[in-house]
């Protein structure tokens, strides 16, 4: 908000003019224990379909956030490394220009937005997303009355034939905005917490406004351990990962997509 004046200047490198707010997340991989609390919280908050056994076996499970597990080192010195992966809300998103109907576009808050009503299900965006962060509803939801009781009323239940993905809990952003507006105030740091951030027991996930340089997320993003996944593709993500390079990591461990370009790099 401090930089609102600067934000009004058109930055031609960005797809849309910013309004001094660019939501982003920092994921400190050195803190992540792979407990999957974020996954559960996300499912509960966002009315995600239950991934029952048959759906998983069909390779059609929907997880807006998933924990990727990598093994590091050679036996017996094997370490499990975890990497929470979700929509990276790229500023230069590969999924956006391929949608013929603007069902996914970039809004002024730096969010990559999915408009369910507009989606026609070409699935081109999902093909083009290098992070595999987009999910398709292959089946209609089978909701009985008990099920309906624990749906979140603020989140649309997606029908079949629609793409969906992490929204950074946009409904929480909107609710916080509304609450502040009732008091005639601006949105403050810490007002908005997506479900995954709220559930994270180790403070791995930090959410906030990357354009506000006093925010915790902006300061963490400058940490020397920072890197972005698949930065070589030029997607300019709003999600920044922190990882200390382990000099003893095995050479043979699978590298996560050539992200060693910047200072932190990743060794996993």
């Amino acid at each position, binding site marked *: 908000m401090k930089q609102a004046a600067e934000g009004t200047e058109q930055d031609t490198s960005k797809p849309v003019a910013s309004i001094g707010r660019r939501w982003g997340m920092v994921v400190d991989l050195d803190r992540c224990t792979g407990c999957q609390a974020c996954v559960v919280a996300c499912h509960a908050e966002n009315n995600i379909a239950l991934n029952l056994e048959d759906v998983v076996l*069909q390779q*059609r499970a929907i997880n807006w956030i998933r924990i990727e597990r990598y093994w590091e080192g050679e036996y017996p010195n094997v370490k499990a490394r975890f990497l929470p992966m979700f929509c990276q809300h790229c500023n230069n998103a590969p999924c956006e220009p391929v949608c013929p109907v603007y069902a996914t576009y970039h809004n002024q808050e730096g969010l990559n937005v999915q408009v369910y009503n507009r989606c026609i*299900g070409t699935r081109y965006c999902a093909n083009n997303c290098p992070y595999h962060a987009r999910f398709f509803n*292959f*089946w209609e939801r089978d909701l009985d009355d008990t099920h309906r009781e624990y749906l979140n009323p603020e989140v649309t239940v997606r029908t079949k*034939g629609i793409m969906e993905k992490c929204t950074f809990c946009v409904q929480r952003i909107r609710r916080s905005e509304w609450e502040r507006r009732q008091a005639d105030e601006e949105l403050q740091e810490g007002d908005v917490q997506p479900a995954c951030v709220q559930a994270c027991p180790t403070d791995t996930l930090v959410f906030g406004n990357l354009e506000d340089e006093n925010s915790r997320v902006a300061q963490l993003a400058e940490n020397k351990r920072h890197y972005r996944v698949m930065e070589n*593709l030029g997607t300019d993500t709003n999600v920044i990962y922190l990882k200390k390079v382990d000099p003893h990591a095995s050479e043979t461990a*699978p590298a*996560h997509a*050539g992200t060693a370009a910047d200072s932190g790099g990743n060794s996993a």
Partner: protein
Amino acid sequence: MHERPRLTPIQINRDLLRSVLETPLVFYVLLLLLMGLVGLGVIAATLMVSYGLGVTGLNHPVFWGFFIINFVFWVGISHAGTMISAILRLSAAEWRRPVVRAAEVMTVFSLLTAALFVVLHTGRPWRTLYWAFPYDFVRGIWPDVRSPLVWDPSAIFTYLTGSILFVYAALIPDLALARDQTTGWRRAVYGVLCLGWRGNARQWKLLNATGLLLSALILPVFVSVHSIVSWDFGMSLVPGWHVHIFAPYFVVGAVLSGVAAVIALMAVMRSLFRLHDYIRPEHFDMIGRLLIVVALAWAYFYFIDVIFALLSNEEAEYQVMKLRLSPPYLYLFLLMITCNVFLPVPIWMFRKFRRNIGIMVWTAIVVNIGMWLERFLIIIPTLQRRHPDAFAWGDYSASLVEITLVIFSFANVALLLLLFSKIFPVIPIWEEKEGHIWKREFRIGKLRLPAIVRE
């Protein structure tokens, strides 16, 4: 063209209108069979629309499957019409005459089928109207012109419109002939359709100008359509698809499969409608020569594609190609390359085989199997290894619904062609007669030299 037997105009009329005026039993048998297959397809599509795309084999990494393969395949087949008629018309190749209409009509029907598969692919077909036909001007939501999926319908509908005009313009004199040979309601229908054709000199002049003009105008569309279809892949960020040679590569592949399909179509027409005097071995000979060039050009592009993936030192590209070139896809790859080049090209090299219609039909079918596999190998393995991490790798096997719909597409094109042949003459009668008028025979000593003399 040299050995064409002498036929009187009356006999030509009778032979070529026979398929329209008479209905043999085999027509009803074929009609029932094809309608049955199309009916199965309709049931499968209904199932898919009501239960969702879950009934297909599509899954998380492999979002595009048989429908897109089939779409690309049928757009490829549709290239035959313009290749045969426009290019050969402009280059005044005499042997084109009996083939042009069947090829053009196949263009129209395969394009319609291809368009149907894009619509089916989205799972909720009615929603697709939003983007193919941006009718809702008031709301102000327009399609995103940056998306290759918006270029696609533009290209396809342009090509479809052009092809329909092309077929129709060349049909007018034949419709007039049909009007003169029929009675009752059929006469009335043909009378309306032939737009008052009287066959005077001015009308013939206009018709010839139209043919040349449409041929010249449709050629750029012909090149652009499959280029644009290839950009569905080329414009993406997917390793294995993001390849710069895709546009010419796809166009050449399309011509290969399309022209091969014309061979099969010609042979079927020849035996079904007893057109032995019109579709002759020398036509198969000529198309065989054309196909040698096209198949070798295709092989060159495929080679470049593989070499670039293997030598570009790009890990993701390499993983995709490695999957494509290792079992089980290796077997498909070998089958494809055998079907497309190693088997048919040596056969086409020999005049004896090119004039053997049975062998030509088999090579045509083999080439189309190969070209279908080629699209399969471009789409499926690539999506399975779209991500350099093993974390998001997957596999794909088509469901019964998808297989049924693929069979449906073949039956659908065949059914439409059959119905067309019932309503309109499948060989352009006036073009055939024109060829006969221009035919001369010279005697040089004992040698009889057939030739074409044009004013």
